[in-house]
């Protein structure tokens, strides 16, 4: 489903964060990527989600090589990947109600006729009730907002879901609830999963296999745990 081949990426060409990393996720497989804060795993997740163009290396998504990132990515590739980030507040437009937030990907891809049915269906799956859907992000808790962000990531029925520290801000019960939503979707759709995080116990329980960042990044000594970025 996803192949990352010798990817080098970062924010300064002279000092890349990700160096020569390869990772593959088979169709239907769930892979947990474990690493300390600041190791570059989120940057790699952004490359895989077509949100960050790598400096070198190649990405193959569902058999097709990726040629463009961000707005240059063709729609069918962009919409094949669903992404959930660590901080729901930073990834939700504060002006939209949760209902509009979940519906946004459908509207941007010209599928507004599906909105009513699909949003209702997903809201039920993630456990958001009618009245909550009309609220805007400032009026809901982090856990409720992350539920909406997960629903948004699933609304286009992606073949690959990328969860970057999806539950790092959440309590144990909400974590278990969101993971069970992801797994129910995967069981029904056959989607693959790349879950990025630092919680070994969680990822080992959740995923088919887990990969440690140090195993991927053979070109240098494991970096010291620096940086607040997940």
């Amino acid at each position: 489903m996803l192949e990352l081949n010798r990817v080098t990426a970062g924010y300064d060409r002279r000092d890349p964060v990700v160096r020569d990393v390869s990772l593959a996720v088979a169709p239907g497989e769930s892979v947990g990527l474990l690493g300390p804060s600041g190791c570059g795993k989120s940057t790699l997740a952004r490359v895989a989600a077509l949100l960050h163009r790598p400096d070198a290396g190649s990405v193959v998504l569902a058999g097709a090589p990726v040629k463009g990132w961000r707005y240059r990515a063709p729609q069918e590739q962009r919409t094949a990947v669903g992404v959930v980030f660590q901080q729901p507040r930073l990834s939700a437009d504060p002006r939209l109600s949760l209902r509009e937030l979940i519906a946004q990907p459908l509207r941007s891809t010209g599928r507004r006729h599906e909105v009513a049915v699909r949003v209702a269906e997903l809201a039920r799956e993630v456990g958001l009730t009618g009245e909550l859907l009309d609220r805007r992000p400032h009026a809901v808790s982090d856990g409720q907002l992350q539920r909406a962000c997960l629903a948004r990531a699933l609304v286009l029925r992606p073949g690959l879901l990328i969860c970057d520290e999806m539950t790092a801000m959440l309590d144990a019960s909400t974590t278990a609830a969101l993971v069970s939503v992801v797994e129910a979707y995967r069981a029904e759709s056959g989607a693959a999963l790349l879950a990025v995080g630092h919680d070994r116990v969680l990822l080992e329980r959740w995923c088919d296999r887990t990969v440690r960042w140090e195993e991927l990044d053979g070109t240098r000594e494991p970096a010291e745990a620096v940086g607040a970025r997940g």
Partner: protein
Amino acid sequence: MKKTSPARPVLSVAGLSVRFRMRGGRHVAAVTDATFDLAAGECLALVGESGCGKSVLASALLGLLPANAETSGAAVLDGDTDLVTAGERVLARTVRGRRIGLVPQSPAAHLTPVRTVRAQLEETLRELTGVRGPAVGPAARAAAGRAAFPADHLDRYPHELSGGLAQRAATALALIGDAPLLLADEPTTGLDRELVERTVDELRRHTDRGRALLLITHDLAAAGRIADRVAVMYAGRIVELADAERFFGRPGPRHPYARGLLEALPEREFAPIPGMPPELADLPAGCAFAARCPRADERCGLQPSFENGVACHHLTGVEIHRAEEPADA
């Protein structure tokens, strides 16, 4: 709750409630009837999901609530100062930083972004300890050292620090006033496991040197690592207060919510509690957990009283009995 503290409690909270007045005459009951003691050398972890009122309780203790908050009950510091009735003047001049040190939730946001760590430590030292002149420099290095902040990073700005180092800088600032009570509000949010453990272990060391620590967190693993006692908060109320060893080990939590929260951990059942917590603006008359509780019945229409460390109608004689066994200190 009947735990007898060896010394006079550093903090004694009794019937503390916080309500926010909202538009249209509505009220949000953020904290209801919180009661607990905290002794020197002891760590009490206040756990619960986001939005359950934990941080509001912390803000109430520091007098940092917005103007529409109505606070009742008492929170007595060292037997002489009621934080609920003390005025802003008293809190600002004698309590914050001096008698209560705050280890904040997001250190990167707590630190002043345009000044170096050294400048912030020195300012706090001058303000709280009266150190002047050439003594300030060594005092700042010593303050940094107490929180294991590396001296060669003192001239960095907050944005140049990693999450772990920013956390230590904030802890160093909180320790300067030698406050007998440390209040840590989600000190480990966003840190990875190794940094979480290092951060809470440092807090535990400061507790072992005789401070009282109120650790507010949703991270049960962090709480289990360093707490002596655990208070579980749900929908603004403390629903269970237990010895940490018994809570995380055997016999385990007694309140159904606390049990559900612990069983949701990936190293345990990894099963969520069904449903979501109620809105604090729209709490049911009875037990707030009843709608999600596997044991709920008609008795739950009444608010359960907090007895023997737990607020639930469904505890059998055996479970009540457990609470009465002496808890080790």
